[in-house]
């Protein structure tokens, strides 16, 4: 990830070049189109990935009672996808998620706005929140708050944003690099 300049730079005083990397961070194979791959990292990330997603869902639902919430949960989920991208590039990312980021962002925004406006249909002012405490046989008493949907919307939106960043700044630049590389060949 540190780019190409691994050798010392030309005006080689100690002051100017103290932070030039001395060695490669990861032992990497150059796989098919140019992306340095690390098998170890890729496999490890695949193992960790579902757990991180579950953690993000936990943060989303626990937000009302303990640290967490839609924003934090969404960021954690987004970071899970970032891990996949860092490990294997856009190919690996595409294997993890197929939904287009703008669709996810739109869904998130729609869910929040609909949640905000839904009380109007029942004669309450906009953004009114309601609590339910249903008794379920095995789980016992549940506490469901209507504003949870707002948090779910935020969660989806944030995940979409992170994916959009990966798409535009990550994969977008990557494709451009590859194209330029091909053109120079």
């Amino acid at each position, binding site marked *: 990830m540190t780019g190409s300049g691994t050798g010392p730079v030309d005006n080689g005083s100690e002051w100017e070049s103290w932070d030039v990397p001395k060695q490669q961070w990861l032992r990497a194979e150059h796989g098919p189109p140019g992306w340095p791959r690390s098998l170890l990292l890729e496999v490890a990330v695949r193992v960790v990935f579902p757990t991180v997603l579950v953690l993000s869902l936990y943060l989303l639902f626990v937000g*009302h009672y303990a640290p967490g919430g839609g924003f934090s949960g969404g960021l954690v989920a987004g970071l899970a996808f970032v891990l996949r991208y860092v490990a294997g590039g856009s190919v690996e990312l595409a294997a993890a998620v197929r939904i287009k980021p703008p669709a996810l962002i739109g869904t998130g925004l729609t869910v929040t706005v609909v949640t905000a406006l839904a009380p109007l249909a029942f004669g309450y*002012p906009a953004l009114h929140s309601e609590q339910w405490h249903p008794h379920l046989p095995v789980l016992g008493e549940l506490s469901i708050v209507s504003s949870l949907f707002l948090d779910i919307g935020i969660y989806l939106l944030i995940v979409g944003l992170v994916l*959009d960043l990966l798409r535009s700044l990550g994969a977008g630049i990557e494709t451009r690099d590859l194209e330029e590389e091909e053109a120079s060949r």
Partner: protein
Amino acid sequence: MRHVLIAIAAHFVVAAMLPVAARWWGRRVFAVGAVVPAVALVLALTELGTLLGGEPATESVAWATGIGLEFTVRLDALAMLMTLLVSGIGTVVLCYFARYAGPDEPGSGRDAALMVVFAGAMLGLVLADDVLSLYVFWEITTVCSFLLVGGAGDSDEARRSAKQALVVTVLGGLAMLLGLIVLGVAAGTFRVSEIVADPPGGAAVTAAVALILAGVVTKSAQVPFHPWLPAAMVAPTPVSAYLHAAAMVKAGVYLAARFAPGFADRPVFWVPLVALGLWTMVLGGVRALRQHDLKLLLAYGTISQLGFLLVLFGAGTYTAALAGAAMLLAHGLFKSALFLTAGAVDKGTGTRDIRELSGLGRRWPVLATLAGLAAASMAGVPPLVGFVGKEAALKAFSHAEPKDFVVLAGLVGASVLTVAYSLRFLVGAFGTRAGPEPVRPKAPGAVFTGAVALPALAGLVLGPGAAWVEALAARYADALPGSRSYHLALWHGLSLPLLLSAVILAGGYAVYRSGVVAGMPGWVPGPLQAQRGYDGTVTGLHALAHGLTGRVQTGSLPVYLGIILLSVVAAPGTMLLLRGVPPVDMPWSRSWLQLPLALIVLAAAAAVLRARRRLTAVLLTGMIGYGIGGLFLVHGAIDLALAQFLVETLTLVVFVLVLRRLPPPFARPRREGAGQRRPGQPALRRREWPKAMIAVLGGTFVALLATVFSGSRMRLPEASSAYVEQAKPDAGATNVVNAILIDFRAFDTIGEITVLVVAATGAASLALAAGRTRHRSMPRAEQDQPEGEEVRR
């Protein structure tokens, strides 16, 4: 009354479906759309009994009760009069449009939808009783006009005309909004009926009235804002007939009429209206006599008539208001009939130029007769409704006062011109002249003839039936002072107005025959030409914007950052100096854990200065962020720390993604004799000193501010304690932070995520668009704005 509200909403709902329907039905969607204003007209007429019997019907819908927003409709006499025009003529014009549009024209769905939206907005505008919804509907009509004039935006002329109409009317609309708000605040109510019933006074209200009049004169195309209306004639003729003759341009007149009962006695209200109105009347009449295009002739005639109406409503007497209400109705009827005639002529012969038309009257006797009726109403020939209105107008100013005399002279002069251009239109369209070949068009068809016949014949019926017009007009005029002895009628005996009418008709014929106005040299000094004034203003504005942007937006990130930091220091810093720094009483440390964290942050901050490679700097900045997150954690702000850690991580990743495109070391142009520099020598050059100063200043100030703010807080603010108390019972949450975010301040949250989406979408589009333009070179190391900075904002 609730059904009238539903009728307004129905316009918008139906309009949304028309573009889809147009795929199967083609131009027939116009006829489908015509059903909506027709139903609205019938529904409004059912209220006529209530209206004539007593109080006007009102109905309101709560919108956002928390901030006192509601939508109120009030159907009084003036609103009823306008509804008859808006919905009645809307129905006729939409039916006409169904025949006017080409069978397979692609834009039918769009045009039909916009026309119906416009009809709905206009209906809402005349019925709305609170100033804010009035403004919203006002601007919807402006936007509809822009889209309809611009069409598909194919021609340069259409785009320019649409833009001019939009710029001029929106400018007036914004001034009006400001005026309405000032007026509403001064009156303590935003209900129009209450403001007019008990008008507030004071200097602010005078300014507010002037601002509202800016909206009136721009929308109703008064001097010097009139050129947008003739330019808007590039729109299809049915659009011109509806928007630019019968309905939209009347919005300004309507507003003047609406506020006249409360404000007509004030000079700030009547002086501009009467002065500009008279000027516009004469100017419109003169310009109309010079036109060869039938539509342009009618457009200048409309400008002149709108001036006439504003004079009548600005005068502020009972008789003038009576005349104004009658003329409002009469003008809508005859002007739409004439425009629709011009459209039929254009469609049938392929030209609207009166120099090319000849012998059409013999071919189309029915249409010629109907157009003749409408033109006669415009000229004020008995027994048409235009005559009734003009008689009342002349009567209203037949007093031996200097002011009334001046107005009367202006009215008579302008009316002479009106008679002359009515003749010019009629003879021009249907007469036979020596030069051109007689045209041989096919018959206009039942729809065209019927659409012209309805308003033209209504003008004929309402002349003898002036008592019906008076039933509504008098209810409106009752709010104004003055003698109640005058009644709308065809015959008042031998009187001054009758004499003046005869003079006007004879004079108009003489002016038309002699061609004296058309032959006059049309020279106006350059600075006084209204169109040149508009062009100059727009060009000047462009130049100003260009110059300002060029100077302010230099494209240098260090300059932007410097300006931001300096303003941060300057604005709160001055206040801090003026108010004095409050005593700070806080312990040096709350926990021993703070010490190592603070050391990490300080060490990382010091190391960032030494970083020579971008990646190092980014990693060290990340370390500062994590350290601060740790400090949050020590203070017990777990939610904050969690968010800080996550955001810091994501920022790092994004930085690293972008850094791939940038050269690894920072830009550092070689200085002369780089080799002689000893290691350890300070690396600041002369141009870097200001940057360093600003950075130190900004950093010190923010640190000081943070200390002062957190140190001077004695206890929890009231709002915070309320949130803490209500989190469990109200939101069912034990995490107060989350309860605030998604419950108490959920509105803020939605606003924030919307901003986030817009910003992220913009950034992503920029990044992807840059990828598409291949040959754009990326910023090199010499430049001062690395692309990586883009992400930070």
